[in-house]
């Protein structure tokens, strides 16, 4: 017997207690967000807040959807996030494949190292020159500026994620295909990609969440409210609607939902990838 029975029970209770406290800490803001979104105005402005809604209502949500530019912001975020995801997946499939097959070349090694280093360069320090460069190329205040920035900053991790997926595929199949006269690109598309679909999806979802959640570039590069994405858009909301917390929280709920859905799907891959990176590190 390693520890006494009494001790074991005490430990178990302590563990549950800790976990329940953590659950409350992590979930409460979301619960409160949802409750505020569903409350009528009078209940939001109550000096006696409760966990119960007297008269639940959808008026905040319909208000956000019909009287505010929320749907425009949402649409912009969808355009930017999908384009950035697509672009960074296409680029990363080729770079990831190269990293998994051609590490013997010194040039490839060098690129891999620079990608690792570029992960450490904080975007905020590049903000000014990027702003100037985008201005010079005339793409400031367009979705393209955001798509390019988001793609660049997700390529390294996406490449590394895909590299580890590709590395687990035996090369025999590819060699056979090449013997039959298949070009390298055709081999990747016909042989490698179909086997790595789960990896590609997980990587894509990571890129998507990253683009969806980004704030600073969206806030600085876009001036036109017709082109604004969700995260800076929600901050605009606070400027315009001030203390209309019902609407702000409704907008928050609506913007968090897609991320949460995606997250439930990639949780396993993401956690494994993160953990592997840190433990090995």
């Amino acid at each position, binding site marked *: 017997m390693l520890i006494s029975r009494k001790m074991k029970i005490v430990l178990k209770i302590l563990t549950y207690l800790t976990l329940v406290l953590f659950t409350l800490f992590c979930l409460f803001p979301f619960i409160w967000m949802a409750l505020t979104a569903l409350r009528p105005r009078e209940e939001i402005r109550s000096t*006696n807040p409760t966990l119960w809604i007297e008269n639940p209502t959808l008026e905040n949500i319909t208000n956000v959807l019909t009287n505010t530019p929320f749907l425009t912001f949402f649409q912009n975020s969808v355009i930017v996030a999908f384009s950035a995801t697509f672009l960074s997946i296409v680029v990363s499939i080729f770079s990831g494949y190269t990293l998994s097959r051609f590490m013997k070349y010194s040039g*490839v090694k060098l690129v891999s190292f620079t990608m690792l280093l570029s992960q450490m360069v904080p975007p*905020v*320090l590049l903000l000014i020159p990027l702003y100037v*460069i985008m201005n010079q190329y005339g793409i400031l205040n367009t979705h393209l500026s955001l798509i390019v920035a988001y793609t660049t900053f997700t390529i390294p991790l996406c490449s590394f994620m895909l590299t580890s997926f590709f590395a687990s595929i035996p090369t025999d199949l590819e060699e056979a295909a090449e013997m039959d006269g298949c070009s390298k690109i055709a081999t990747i598309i016909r042989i490698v990609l179909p086997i790595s679909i789960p990896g590609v999806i997980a990587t894509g979802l990571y890129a998507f969440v990253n683009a969806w959640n980004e704030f600073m570039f969206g806030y600085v590069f876009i001036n036109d409210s017709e082109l604004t994405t969700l995260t800076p858009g*929600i901050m605009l909301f606070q400027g315009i609607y001030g203390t209309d917390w019902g609407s702000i929280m409704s907008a928050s709920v609506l913007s968090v939902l897609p991320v949460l859905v995606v997250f439930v799907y990639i949780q396993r891959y993401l956690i494994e990838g993160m953990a592997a990176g840190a433990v090995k590190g």
Partner: protein
Amino acid sequence: MNNRENRTLKRETRSKLIAYAFILPALLFFLFIVAYPLFTVLWDSFQIKNLINPETQGFAGLDNYISVLQNPNFIPALWNTIGWTVLSVTGEYVLGITSALALNQKIKGRAIFRGIIIIPWVVPIVIAGMTWTWMLTPDYGVLNIWMADLGIIDEPYYWLGEKDTSLLTVVIVNIWRSFPFYTICFLAALQAVNREMVEAAAIDGAGIITRFRKIILPELKSVSMVLIFIHVIWTFINFDFIWIMTQGGPARASETLPIMIYKFAMEEFNVGIASALSSMMLAFMLLVFIMYYLYTSTKNKG
């Protein structure tokens, strides 16, 4: 013979070409969006460059650096940045290790608890910031009212609007959003700890605390180093949290260096000075990186 050698040589060149062609797009993105701007920052930091007066240009020498250092807001912002980083990383570390130890026990519903604990990490920072701002508003903020009801505070307090508490409040929100990353990494490391060793130590009479200190904690050392290293940098350069919740206010009480860079660049349009401050932060990061590198390489040797 010669012919065959020639052919393998050709194949080798071809495969080399393919490798470089495949990696080129990723390299181009890096060169245009990371390397070139990085170089520009260093270059501009020695130039007189102001977007309002584009005509006045020229070599500034170290003038930009001197103006940054002599700016009366620099030293307070530096201290704020250090405080913000140290408090955030410490808090995240403590919560991360506690939650990971609890999740590592054999209990029911572990997967659900784990799933819930990681949720804050997935949410956009803006939304985390907005929700906490709302919960902390002085008039109707639920946390304010409940704390007053419980007698913790006498009356609702404007946490984000008072000089003494604004930065500390943002620290707490940052901890809330960032600690799950530690949890997941610690959990993975804990699962690699040799159970037999822990049990053997227990049979030899080592108590829970001794076992934790002598066996488990050393196992977590390398993960801890990586986590602290990454997060010192991430927190040090973080712009979003503070900008969203306080914009550095009230009266610059929560202004950190990244906020200062933003204000130099986007409010005063002084690219030279903003670049000088950015370069100083880059130098600091490089220093942390070198220290980390030296630490890990001596450790691996020994």
